[in-house]
C-alpha cells in the first residue's frame, strides 16, 4: 500500500532524455491558441475606445504593452517544456500555501466566465435576430446557451480535447485575421495609415480632447491585459503540456470520454537527464520563442487593425460610443462602407473574438482545478 501523501506535495521529478523537436511547424499550436484567446474585449473595445477618444496620444503604449508579457509567458512555457508539469504544479512545488492562495484567487476571477459566451451571443443575436420576436436579452441568452451546448458536445465527442481546442482556435485566428485585413483595406483606413504608423512610436501631442480621469483605469487595464493578461497567461503551460512539447512528451493527454482512448497521466513530471537529449535544448527554446512570438505578434496585429479602424472611422467624426456600444457602432460603419456583408463580417468577427474565450477558459480552468485538487487533497 503506498504511503499517504501530505497535502500540497508532489512526487519527485523522474529523469528522462529530452526528446528532439519534431519540426517547428508540427510543434506550433499553443501560440495560435494564445493569439485567438488573446483577442477579446481589450482588442475589440478598450484599445479602439482609447484611440477613438484620444487619437494617437496613447498608441505608442500598445507595442510595449504587448511585449511586456513575453518574458512571463516564456518562463511559464519553459517550466512545462523542461518538466512536463503544469505551471500550477510548479507553484505547488515552490510553496504550497502560496499556490493554494493563488488557486483561490484564480477560482474567484473565473467564477463568471460564462459572460464570454454571453458576449459572443450578443453578436450572434444582432447578426441573426433569431429567435424572431424574442427580446434582445432573450436572444442573447439563447445564443449563449447554444454556444455552450455546441462547445460542450464537441469536447465530449473529441478524441483528444487539446486537438479540438487548437483546431477551433486556428479557425478563429485565421477568420479574424483575414476579416480584419479585408476590413482595413478601405480608402479611409489606408489614408490614415501613415499618421497611424508614426503614432506607434511618437505620441500625438497635444491631446485632441481633455484627459478624463475616469479613463485612467481603462488605460491601465488595456495595458496590463493586452494579449492574454492576468491568469489567462498561465493557460499557456497547459497547451504546451497537451501539445506534448519537450518533456511533456512523457505526460499523457486529456482525451474525450466517449470517443477518446484513456491515457495515463503521471502525478509528477520528468526533468532532462545529463545525456544526449541535452543537444535538443536550444531547438526547443527556439520553438518557444517563435511560438510565443506568433501569439503576441498575431494579437498585436489584430489590435493594430482594430485601432486603425477606430482612428480612421470614429476619431475624425468625434464619435465616442460608450463601452459595448462601440462594437455596435463599428458594425454600422462596416455596413455603410461595405453594405450588409460588411456588417455581417464584423459581427462574425466579434462573435469569434468573444465566444472562443469560453471554450479555451472552460478547458484550461478545469485542468487547473484538477491539478490543485489532486495535489491539495491527495488520495491516501
Amino acid at each position, binding site marked *: 500500500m503506498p504511503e499517504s501523501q501530505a497535502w500540497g506535495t508532489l512526487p519527485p521529478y523522474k529523469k528522462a532524455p529530452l526528446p528532439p523537436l519534431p519540426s517547428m511547424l508540427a510543434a506550433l499550436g499553443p501560440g495560435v491558441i494564445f493569439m485567438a484567446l488573446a483577442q477579446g474585449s481589450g482588442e475589440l473595445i478598450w484599445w479602439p475606445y482609447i484611440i477613438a477618444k484620444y487619437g494617437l496620444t496613447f498608441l505608442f503604449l500598445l507595442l510595449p504593452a504587448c511585449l511586456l508579457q513575453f518574458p512571463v509567458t516564456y518562463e511559464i512555457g519553459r*517550466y512545462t517544456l523542461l518538466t512536463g508539469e503544469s505551471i500550477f504544479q510548479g507553484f505547488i512545488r515552490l510553496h504550497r500555501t502560496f499556490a493554494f492562495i*493563488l488557486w483561490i484567487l484564480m477560482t474567484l476571477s473565473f467564477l463568471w466566465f460564462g459572460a464570454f459566451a454571453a458576449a459572443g451571443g450578443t453578436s450572434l443575436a444582432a447578426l441573426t435576430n433569431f429567435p424572431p420576436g424574442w427580446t434582445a436579452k432573450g436572444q442573447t441568452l439563447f445564443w449563449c446557451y447554444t454556444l455552450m451546448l455546441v462547445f460542450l458536445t464537441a469536447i465530449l465527442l473529441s478524441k483528444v480535447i487539446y486537438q479540438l481546442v487548437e483546431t477551433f482556435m486556428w479557425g478563429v485566428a485565421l477568420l479574424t485575421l483575414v476579416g480584419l485585413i479585408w476590413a482595413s483595406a478601405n480608402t479611409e483606413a489606408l489614408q490614415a495609415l501613415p499618421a497611424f504608423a508614426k503614432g506607434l512610436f511618437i505620441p500625438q501631442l497635444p491631446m485632441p480632447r481633455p484627459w478624463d480621469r475616469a479613463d485612467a483605469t481603462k488605460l491601465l487595464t488595456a495595458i*496590463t491585459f493586452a494579449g492574454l493578461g492576468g491568469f489567462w497567461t498561465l493557460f499557456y503551460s497547459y497547451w504546451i503540456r497537451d501539445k506534448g512539447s519537450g518533456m511533456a512528451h512523457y505526460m499523457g493527454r486529456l482525451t474525450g470520454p466517449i470517443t477518446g482512448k484513456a491515457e495515463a497521466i503521471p502525478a509528477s513530471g520528468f526533468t532532462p537527464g*545529463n545525456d544526449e537529449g541535452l543537444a535538443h535544448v536550444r531547438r526547443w527554446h527556439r520553438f518557444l520563442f517563435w511560438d510565443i512570438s506568433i501569439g503576441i505578434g498575431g494579437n498585436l496585429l489584430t489590435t493594430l487593425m482594430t485601432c486603425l479602424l477606430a482612428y480612421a472611422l470614429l476619431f475624425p467624426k468625434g464619435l465616442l460610443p460608450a463601452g459595448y456600444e462601440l462594437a455596435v457602432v463599428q458594425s454600422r460603419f462596416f455596413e455603410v462602407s461595405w453594405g450588409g456583408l460588411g456588417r455581417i463580417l464584423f459581427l462574425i468577427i466579434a462573435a469569434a473574438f468573444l465566444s472562443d474565450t469560453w471554450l479555451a477558459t472552460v478547458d484550461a480552468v478545469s485542468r487547473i482545478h484538477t491539478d490543485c485538487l489532486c495535489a491539495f487533497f491527495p488520495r491516501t
Partner: protein
Amino acid sequence: MGFSEPGPLILLSAVIGFVGTVLFSVALIFLNHVYLPRHLPPGARPGKVNLVFLCLACFAYALLAIAYLLTVTGMI
C-alpha cells in the same frame, strides 16, 4: 454595490487579475531561477538574460498594479 450589474464584477475581476499577475510573475523568478535549476543538468539551466527580462516585466506589472489600485481607490 451589488453583483446583479456587470460593473462591480468587472472591477473585482480586474483587481484580482492585477494582484494575481504580480504574484505569479514574482513566483516565476523563484521557480525557474532558484528551485528548478537544482533539478536540471547545467546544459538546461536558464541564463541571466532571461532573469533580467523577467525581473523587468515583474517590476512593470507591479507599477501598473499600484497605479491601478491608487486610481480605483481615488487616491490619484
